């Protein structure tokens, strides 16, 4: 468990060029590595017909590979508005499948609300807890610190189900059965190893002189945290929030076990149940529409925040 792995990635949290994978100029120097002739990165732009002839198979193969990854998504998006017998969208293009989805059981808006509620509460709790905890782990010494940090990381070692069954019993015992708040609490706990690690190294990358100067000026540690440190660890917070949102929005197993009331179900659960709606006859069109509704926010967030997603990997937070 190397907590100081790649501190350079976070040394200046505002400089995005440290996120090497997405910084185009970073790898340019490696392109010359031994002239190993691997694709366009290793040679200069093609100027001759021979160059283009050599390059064409490369474009075709890699482009085909990319298409293979994108095809299921594109196909689903298109066919969710295409006609299909046995669905609400029998002829012509349109949003019939989305209409089926909208009216399914409690209605899509209820499930959208539930999912949004659980996701935002999980993100909020994860951010607050890992911000405070990361600050404590990076800047304070207190008895039991190492034990607590290791216990947090140990969550990773324990299978999901091993914890969910007793959690089901415990939440029922404290009156949080069928509760979206209960689901958010559980999902927050599962996010803690990654988030705590991420926030700890984010704080550790901020020079101590910064907050110590503020301390000398008479600021309390609370004010130092909010006025000096939060701006400095903001990229870490965005990464933590993004991972928490994706995990919570997409989680299937926690709501499956903890929620049985159809009005409290989250979107993945509702859409999974949708398949057996009418006597085992699967409404494929509505399922496609459901997948689009589920996937769209994630893909958009991912494309907008790709840099921050990649940072989660660069941090070494997966080196559990």
């Amino acid at each position: 468990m190397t907590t100081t792995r790649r501190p350079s990635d976070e040394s200046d949290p505002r400089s995005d060029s440290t996120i090497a994978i997405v910084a185009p100029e970073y790898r340019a120097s490696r392109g010359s590595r031994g002239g190993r002739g691997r694709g366009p990165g290793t040679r200069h732009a093609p100027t001759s017909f021979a160059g283009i002839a050599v390059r064409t198979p490369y474009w075709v193969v890699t482009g085909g590979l990319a298409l293979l990854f994108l095809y299921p998504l594109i196909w689903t998006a298109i066919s969710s508005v295409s006609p299909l017998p046995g669905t609400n969208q029998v002829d012509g293009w349109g949003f019939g499948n989305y209409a089926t989805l909208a009216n399914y059981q409690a209605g899509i808006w209820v499930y959208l609300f539930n999912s949004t509620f659980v996701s935002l509460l999980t993100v909020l709790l994860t951010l607050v807890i890992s911000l405070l905890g990361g600050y404590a782990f990076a800047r304070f010494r207190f008895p039991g610190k190492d034990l607590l940090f290791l216990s947090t990381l140990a969550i990773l070692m324990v299978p999901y189900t091993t914890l969910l069954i007793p959690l089901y019993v415990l939440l029922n015992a404290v009156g949080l059965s069928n509760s979206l708040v209960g689901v958010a609490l559980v999902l927050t706990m599962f996010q803690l190893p990654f988030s705590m690690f991420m926030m700890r190294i984010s704080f550790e990358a901020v020079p101590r002189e910064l907050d110590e100067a503020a301390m000398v000026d008479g600021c309390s540690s609370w004010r130092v945290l909010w006025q000096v440190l939060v701006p400095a660890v903001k990229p870490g917070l965005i990464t933590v929030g993004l991972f928490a949102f994706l995990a919570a929005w997409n989680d299937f197993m926690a709501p499956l076990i903890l929620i049985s009331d159809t009005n409290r179900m989250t979107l993945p659960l509702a859409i999974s149940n949708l398949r057996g709606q009418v006597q085992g006859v699967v409404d494929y069109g509505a399922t496609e529409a459901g997948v689009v509704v589920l996937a769209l926010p994630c893909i958009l967030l991912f494309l907008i925040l790709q840099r921050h997603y990649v940072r989660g990997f660069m941090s070494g937070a997966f080196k559990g």
Partner: protein
Amino acid sequence: MTATLPAEAAEAAAASARRRRHPGRRGAITGWLYALPTALFVLLLFALPLLLVLQMSGSDWPLLGGNQGWNFPENYQDAVSNRFFWDSVLFTLKYTILTTIILLALSLGLALLVQESTRWKGLLRTSFLVPSALGLASASLLFYVLYSPIAGPFAGLMKAWGFTFLGTPDGALWSTIFLIVWRYAGFYMLLMLVGLQGIPDDVYEAARIDGASRWQTFRSVTLPLLRPTLALTTVLCVTGSLLAFEQFYILTKGGPDNSTITIVQLIYSVAFQGQNDLGVAGALSVIVLLALIVINIAQIRAFNRKAED
């Protein structure tokens, strides 16, 4: 998995030296107050359930009836003698081995393919990564339709040639592996890229001067230096695959002919579908937990031993 490079070790030492310069400047009580929410979550939602599952595994505990007293060795005996236990263990292991080999080989290939930074490779990286943004449940639902003999893009072909994706045990297994590879290849590619970037350029330069071929460079420079990353990705992939649930729950429901029941699916069905026996489910969970710890320690040991050679 401590893979501290010398430079990083030096930096870590410097950091702890900085820390020592201001011993106990800030109160332990303040520190604890900031760590309190973490401690509460770890205690109440992690440590307590862990103890409870141990107790459950030794108790007669029906889903709706609550704790009915000790039932210690019997739960474990029942768990192991469940008629799907060994089948599910074998299937889970088979699935894990196949998935880990295919996924890691492919993601390493993808990482090598896109490691230089050009606009085109950036686009490729993004395409490979987009499926990782989807949840496993969403991806499984997507492939459920994709593999459908009625609505899928291959429906016509399936009818003409008379095959199905999910209708046979082998078909269901490979179709699920394909889904998992699609969903996770980008994720592991990114981890591999991070590892590849840790290999210094001058090592490649030296290999080139020595006249090493591309394959020789890969075998004797890239692979050995990538070992920490390979260890990490193997542990992650094995753990994830051993605990597989959603993909089979949604795609195959354990079928056809109960041929694709994983161990976690077995736990779920013992606890919530029919048998409703939390005691036996708890016993199974504890068995899985112990097996996972043993398997992970063995993997880390194996990778470390290789490193010493």
